[in-house]
């Protein structure tokens, strides 16, 4: 049994024929070959597989392919334009907001989504929004530093 999906991934409209048993995470990594999105626990606990679906961070490991139909998806590969990193990505680099980098795509995407809604977010709200993503290296202070870097000084 196969199903057809119409999805927009990183600004590109795609028609994808896939197996309904696959998750969005598997479709992205194995069919579209966008391997920036990582699989951690596979059961929605760690948040490593977060992508933006219609602008919202979601755990792509829990989305069956059929639920991705008609959705606009952004992955970490869609952030930079012509090889130029976004302000948030540059802030992560500048503050060293990662060690192994496995949670970084989810962290950067979630932080990016926060700033699209509010360019001066409360740090407690940022912590709550990022709270769904585990960083096993414990880079949380640096990740918050990157967010504060983007937020700007004196705020």
């Amino acid at each position, binding site marked *: *049994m196969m*199903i057809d999906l119409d999805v927009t991934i990183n600004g590109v409209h795609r028609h994808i024929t896939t197996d*309904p*048993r*696959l*998750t969005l995470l*598997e479709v992205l990594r194995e069919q579209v070959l966008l391997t920036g999105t990582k*699989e951690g626990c*596979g*059961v*929605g*606990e760690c*948040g490593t597989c*977060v992508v933006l*679906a219609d602008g*919202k*961070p*979601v*755990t792509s*490991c*829990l*989305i*069956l392919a*059929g*639920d991705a139909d008609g959705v606009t998806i952004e992955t970490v590969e869609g952030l930079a334009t012509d090889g130029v990193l976004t302000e948030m990505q540059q802030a992560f680099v500048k503050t060293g907001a990662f060690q192994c980098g496995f949670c970084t795509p989810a962290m950067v995407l*979630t932080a990016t989504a926060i700033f699209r809604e509010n360019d001066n977010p409360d740090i407690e709200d940022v912590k*709550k*929004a990022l*709270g*769904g*993503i585990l960083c096993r290296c414990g880079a949380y202070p640096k990740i918050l530093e990157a967010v504060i870097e983007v937020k700007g000084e004196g705020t």
Partner: protein
Amino acid sequence: MKRLREFEYYEPTSLEEASRMLAEAEPDARVLAGGTDLVVDMKTGRMRPSTVVNLKRIPDLTGIEDADGGTRIGALTKVDVVEVSPLVVERHPALAQAASILASPPVRALATIGGNVGRASPASDLGPALIVSDAVATIHGVDGPRDELVEDLYTGPGATSLARSDIITALTLPARRPGFGSAHVKLGKRGSGTDIALAGASASLVIGDGGEIIDCRIALASLGPIPFRAVGSESVLRSEILTEALLEAAAEAAAGDAKPIGDMRASSAYRTRLARVLTLRALHGAVESAGAGVAA
């Protein structure tokens, strides 16, 4: 993670079609709403449905609207939408609070209120909040729609009184009465919600002008096989005058109502203590939400 096992996959476009598919499929068929429990259960092998019926193409299952001063919430409404809905926040604080601590933000963006009820987890965050709000589930079955108290749906861990072909279409919470207040609290491992409740408690109170408790509900989660009313605790409160000592007595009684198991997350004795502590916190929250004060 290994691939899911093969299943028949359907996206019906009407409730009638969905109910028929469920009635005709093998008994292990499952309804897919947000998927945050079902997909996990399928990945871990706890459930191996031969058929999955996705409700996403059925119209009118999403949205929050006024219903005679109460609030009707479509079953497929996402938990993160419930969490910030002005109608829910103003009228049904316990539900808004429970929604705000259910799992993590990227899971709340997928999980649905109807799915949470249908899943019937003993550790449900929304369950106790819906119970103390006197929430009614509208259910579409082969014989048409019917209404049932959410409280009456739960029959066991992961089990409900719903028939195979039944589909929850909406949850309706009645209008807020004068003097009403409600609150939900839980204790998890990771601070601000994010993970499963070691124990949870919701309380609602209707407090009269003289401080008398006209009506009350207390409901507990992870403290028994289902989300359930702590009737012993409620009977301590009902018709009495609100005092701190009364709230403490009610919290103590809630520990007697609790029948928790011990597991890898918490021992039975610890959970019983939590029943008292969390019930007291929920009651204080409900008093505050009612805008009332507590006599010493």
